[in-house]
């Protein structure tokens, strides 16, 4: 895209001899704090616990022992598991991208009634806990289920479909966010010169979207490669991945050596995907600057072949892949031993016979924990985004900033069980302090925040980067103090993205189950935990109540996303 190729003004002004005012950093102390606080957080609650537990696997009697690598790689199963992980992730990514691109077009380049609701709806799967999705998905696919005839239950295909189900939204949002900002003039010019719509798509639009697509693809690859519950519930150990293998070796066999080796293997895969994502994103974020805040959407025209294809693909995907399992969940939640009714929902109000809390109370706990997690994630993620959005002049400082960005993405790719077990062995006296955090509700919020921080960074950062540095310079020249520059320029522009980040961090924390399920918990369980416990008991009432609680969780999530969705349009938003 020609406009995107124009150079970054920042680079020019910085290098050029222009009458640039002297830099006015808000003081070294301020930036040190902005870097220090997130680093301290990540070190204390991620790097240190992970090193503690992985370290145990590599230390024998206090000496470093890397013999585990030889042993683990000598097992044929290891190679099969690594191969399966890569195959599942690759296919899941391909599916999400192929289906997601038409979805991105329809939801961000076209206008129609209910678009906002549809955008919120496609996001729900991304934040549903796997326990729920397992029930919803498998009961469709099992013999005698609505789609039982397809023979998909327990197959590789079922896992890939579920991975697409979870990650479709990532592609739609990342690519869509970019697409709606894309300057339509290049496409119009190509059309005017006689190119067919397909040719324009192939030669103009898709190349321009390339970085966004690559960025989304690597994120999805990351999520797919580290999928855990989905794989176990839908495929069992037959289709084990590196992640499920780490879980089994750690929790069931206490083979920390094998788990540590596998963690390193996973880290290598993850860092590879992140490096790819980082490069792709760098290009996305540079191109963004010149995008015209969009008024690019047009009403859906079914006669236009592009629109028609987008509508068909999206209807099939949203209706078949996304809606069917969710609808199945709702329908089943309405079924009671006495026929159809709301009994299961009524049961949510009373403490389940053996759970001391009702589902509503648990939902309250979930919301409160999510508030904590969101606040932590916003502060930490916001600071990271702020620091990373700056482009220091020295190459070494630039590399440091890029490194910081990558570092905070790692929690998305490191096994939840590694982090959870790391917490167990390191949080009895965090940073040497005499506080046992392991049974504290604070740690649950912290664990959720660790997961949400990368999403906050990815949402806020592109917007901060899109701010023309000259605006800050102008403000500074006019005498604004550094803090004031931050407030009037950065914060004002980033506010909508912050709102969006808040929504996603909140929704992700609400449904988070993986990390918290490994943590010590006090008496107050969260909603996903209550669902899990209800499903762990026999009896139609428990089953029904679990389904109703799942619908409640899905509705809460969709509601939060929908509210934040309204903050988003029509201008710049995040690109995760």
């Amino acid at each position: 895209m020609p406009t995107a190729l124009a150079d970054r003004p920042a680079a020019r002004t910085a290098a050029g001899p222009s009458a640039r005012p002297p830099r006015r950093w808000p003081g070294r102390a301020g930036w040190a704090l902005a870097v220090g606080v997130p680093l301290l957080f990540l070190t204390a609650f991620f790097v240190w616990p992970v090193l503690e537990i992985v370290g145990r696997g590599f230390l024998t009697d206090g000496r470093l022992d890397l013999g585990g690598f030889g042993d683990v790689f000598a097992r044929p199963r290891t190679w099969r598991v690594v191969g399966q992980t890569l195959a599942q992730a690759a296919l899941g990514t391909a599916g999400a991208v192929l289906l997601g691109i038409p979805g991105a077009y329809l939801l961000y380049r076209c206008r129609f009634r209910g678009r906002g609701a549809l955008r919120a709806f496609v996001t729900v799967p991304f934040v549903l806990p796997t326990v729920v999705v397992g029930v919803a998905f498998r009961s469709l696919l099992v013999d005698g289920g609505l789609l039982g005839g397809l023979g998909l239950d327990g197959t590789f295909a079922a896992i890939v479909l579920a991975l697409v189900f979870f990650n479709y939204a990532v592609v739609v949002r990342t690519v869509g966010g970019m697409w709606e900002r894309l300057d339509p003039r290049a496409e119009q010019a190509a059309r005017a010169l006689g190119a067919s719509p397909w040719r324009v798509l192939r030669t103009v639009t898709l190349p321009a979207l390339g970085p966004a697509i690559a960025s989304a693809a690597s994120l999805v690859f990351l999520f797919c490669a580290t999928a855990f519950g989905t794989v176990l519930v839908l495929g069992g150990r037959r289709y084990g991945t590196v992640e499920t293998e780490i879980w089994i070796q750690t929790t069931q066999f206490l083979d920390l050596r094998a788990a540590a080796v596998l963690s390193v293997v996973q880290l290598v895969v993850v860092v590879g995907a992140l490096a790819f994502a980082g490069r792709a994103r760098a290009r996305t974020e540079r191109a963004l600057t010149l995008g015209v805040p969009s008024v690019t959407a047009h009403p859906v025209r079914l006669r236009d072949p592009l629109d028609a294809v987008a509508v068909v693909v999206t209807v099939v995907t949203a209706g078949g892949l996304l809606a069917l399992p969710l609808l199945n969940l709702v329908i089943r939640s309405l079924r009671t031993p006495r026929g159809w009714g709301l009994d299961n929902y009524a049961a949510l109000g009373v403490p389940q016979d053996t759970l001391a809390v009702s589902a509503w109370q648990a939902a309250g706990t979930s919301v409160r924990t999510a508030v904590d997690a969101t606040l932590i994630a916003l502060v930490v993620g916001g600071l990271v985004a702020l620091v990373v959005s700056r482009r220091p002049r020295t190459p070494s400082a630039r590399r440091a900033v890029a490194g910081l960005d990558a570092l905070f993405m790692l929690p998305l790719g490191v096994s939840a069980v590694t982090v959870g077990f790391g917490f167990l062995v390191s949080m009895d006296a965090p940073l040497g302090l005499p506080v046992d955090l392991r049974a504290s509700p604070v740690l649950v919020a912290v664990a959720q925040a660790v997961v949400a921080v990368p999403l906050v960074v990815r949402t806020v950062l592109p917007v901060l980067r899109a701010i023309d540095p000259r605006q800050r310079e102008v403000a500074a020249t006019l005498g604004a103090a550094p803090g004031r520059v931050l407030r009037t320029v950065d914060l004002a522009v980033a506010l909508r993205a912050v709102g969006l980040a808040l929504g996603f961090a909140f929704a992700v924390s609400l449904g988070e189950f993986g990390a918290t399920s490994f943590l010590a918990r006090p008496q107050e369980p969260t909603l996903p935990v209550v669902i899990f416990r209800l499903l762990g008991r026999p009896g139609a009432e428990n089953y029904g109540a679990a389904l109703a609680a799942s619908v409640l969780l899905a509705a809460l999530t969709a509601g939060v996303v929908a509210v934040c969705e309204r903050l988003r349009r029509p201008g710049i938003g995040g690109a995760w």
Partner: protein
Amino acid sequence: MATPSPRRSPDVRRAALGAATCAALLTLTACSATGGATPDATPGGAGSVTLVTHESFALSEGLLEQFEEDSGLDVQVVQQADSGALVNQLVLTKDAPLGDLVYGIDNAFASRALDEGVVVASELTAPAATDAAAYAVPGDDAGALTAIDFGDVCLNVDTAWFAEQGVPEPTTLDSLLDPAYRDLVVVPDPVTSSPGLAFLLASVGAFGEEGWVDYWAGLRDNGLKVADGWTEAYYTDFTAGGGDGPRPVVVSYASSPPFTVPEGGDAPTTRALLDTCFRQVEYAGVLAGAANPEGAARLLDFLLSDEVQADVPASMYMYPVSSAVELPDDWTRWAPLADAPFDVAPADIATHRERWLTQWSDTVIG
């Protein structure tokens, strides 16, 4: 100009308003977990005792509160994953124990807990302590682990399904090899599920070191389905679990049938096959290095008290070890125990568990 002046943009104002509303809502919803509830900051302190247990721990409302009132102790409950993972977590945290008392170590993992020294013996005064002694882990002469409850993991069949289809119900482990039961059985994976492991042990007890692998190869060839956990097997694959699955034979508990009494009906629609069972015993023990070992011992006594023992069937779906309490009516009618469950010595389990699981995986999962 890439970005309009922030001051004048209505979008920004709306966004600011939205974000502020969102934040305000969040704050109003009830502050936060830490702000809302104020948990005891010093679990394990003088007046408090921390119980470390598995996901399935539950007592009827008020019981634990009554104990707190009577004893003056403040009880914290820390719930970890399932029983296998629980023991491993305790081993990992031996130097800084997660609490004072553990409940929920079962006989498949008891030897590991004893070998690793995560529990120590304590003085018990509850009358049911003598009943509990009957379930002591062989070799645990000091009595570091105290049995609290037990249950039989057995095949459950959907009697209604078999009656409808006119097929006779299977009765023994062997009968599942009959082609008549092809594609009818679902079991939870023993590596990822504790009832799954218990059923694997039943087969080891029944067919011995020599025969159990062949038995599973036969099951596999007869269309066995393996689910990830009990939940998936019972709710999704089993015909009578509520999920309308396709398979009428499932691994569950001898105490599951009372839960399948239909609304208004007077008999369950499922039955446990009592010749296919393995007895799971759940133990509690004071953790080595506990901050409050006396409090832990009192809590342990409380778990053996008549109140808790009588509550065990309804809240944890297990049978109490105490002979002094009465079972619920529907249990005496529809949840009888196996006369002679299959048995494998805990020491044998401890030595061979990993190898058995690997062999099982190689045979059944491939």
